């Protein structure tokens, strides 16, 4: 794990949102096609785009800006990653972001949030996701694929269509851990299957089946 402290760098407001296609997003919505009244978890924070898209499909959405929750739990003076080892801070983060009854959700859009969590908090979060997701449901997560990087861009992800998303820059942060396919398979070993898509901008899109 890199030794340099992880710092949140504010975004440059001159960078406009990007729009791009996503195989992972397409797979996610394909997996729930034809179903209604599902409960979907969205970690990007409530936006008109995501709420409208998901509710127009007849589903219920639970929104939480988990990057903001992370910042509130682990930000401030000191190292962001080191703060995750503090049991109180970790418990507060899990309570604010993943405190749900078992088998609550039929899908989860985690976007790029998991890559900023360090072990053992990361494993605890994945374990909770396994409990709160119903069998056969899918989760979508993004991981930065470059091994040696000081920072990864943070985005607010908005759904434009079932396979197109808009990314609005909101800063930069060093990922807590580098993830390759093997480490991701190990991370999600409790789940039924893990599928990867590698994009041209060094992003690993992961679809995990509960």
């Amino acid at each position: 794990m890199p030794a340099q402290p992880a710092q949140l760098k504010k975004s440059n407001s001159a960078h406009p949102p990007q729009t791009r296609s996503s195989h992972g997003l397409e797979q996610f919505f394909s997996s729930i096609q034809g179903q209604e009244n599902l409960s979907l978890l969205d970690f990007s924070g409530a936006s008109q785009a995501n709420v409208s898209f998901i509710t127009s499909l007849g589903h219920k959405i639970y929104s939480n800006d988990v990057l903001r929750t992370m910042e509130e739990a682990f930000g401030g003076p000191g190292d962001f990653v080191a703060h995750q080892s503090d049991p109180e801070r970790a418990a507060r983060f899990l309570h604010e972001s993943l405190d749900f009854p078992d088998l609550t959700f039929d899908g989860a859009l985690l976007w790029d949030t998991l890559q900023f969590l360090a072990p053992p908090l990361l494993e605890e979060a994945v374990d909770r996701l396994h409990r709160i997701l119903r069998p056969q449901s899918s989760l979508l997560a993004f991981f930065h694929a470059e091994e040696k990087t000081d920072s990864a861009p943070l985005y607010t992800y908005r759904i434009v269509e079932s396979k197109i998303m808009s990314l609005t820059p909101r800063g930069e942060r060093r990922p807590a851990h580098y993830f390759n396919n093997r480490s991701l398979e190990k991370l999600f070993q409790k789940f039924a299957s893990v599928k990867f898509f590698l994009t041209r901008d060094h992003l690993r899109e992961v679809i995990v089946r509960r």
Partner: protein
Amino acid sequence: MWNKRKEEEYPPKSAATPPAPANQAKETAPMSTTPAPSHHPSESRGPAIIGKSVMIKGQIFSREDLTIDGEIDGSVELHEHRLTVGPNGKLQAGVKAREVVVLGTIHGNVEAADKIDIRKDARLVGDIKTARIVIEDGAYFKGSIDIARPETGKASGAPSSKPAATSSTTTVNSAAAGTPVSASGD
């Protein structure tokens, strides 16, 4: 002769009597602490307002539009009307209304039969059940959103055809006092 003069000085009351004093209590409504409204049916009245220096613990029921810019701890119900939570408004309360506009803060579940509008800089933590939702960029929301189709054939928010002489009321039940307190809207 003395009595007759007295009658001339103080004629019996006729139909054209001056309006009752503002502090005369009505038969059915408790004493109001706000000035009596002027009854002009042709004038449109704005919403009732709870100002930013007001803090209420208890239940609020309203039969008119209501703007809250103060602090509420309890519940707020305006089934056929609009609730606006002003920029200084802080609700630790469950809310039920026809329409809800949030510029301040709500911690609690919200049921808006028609629409909920969460403005920039607003903060809402709780579950929402509504027919339509608008979330501005910059608004903070945490919770679930359940879009419920409105019932057909139900007249929601239809204007009343009754004359405005019957004043609409906002009732506040104070948990501390245990006594209803009415505040008539303007």
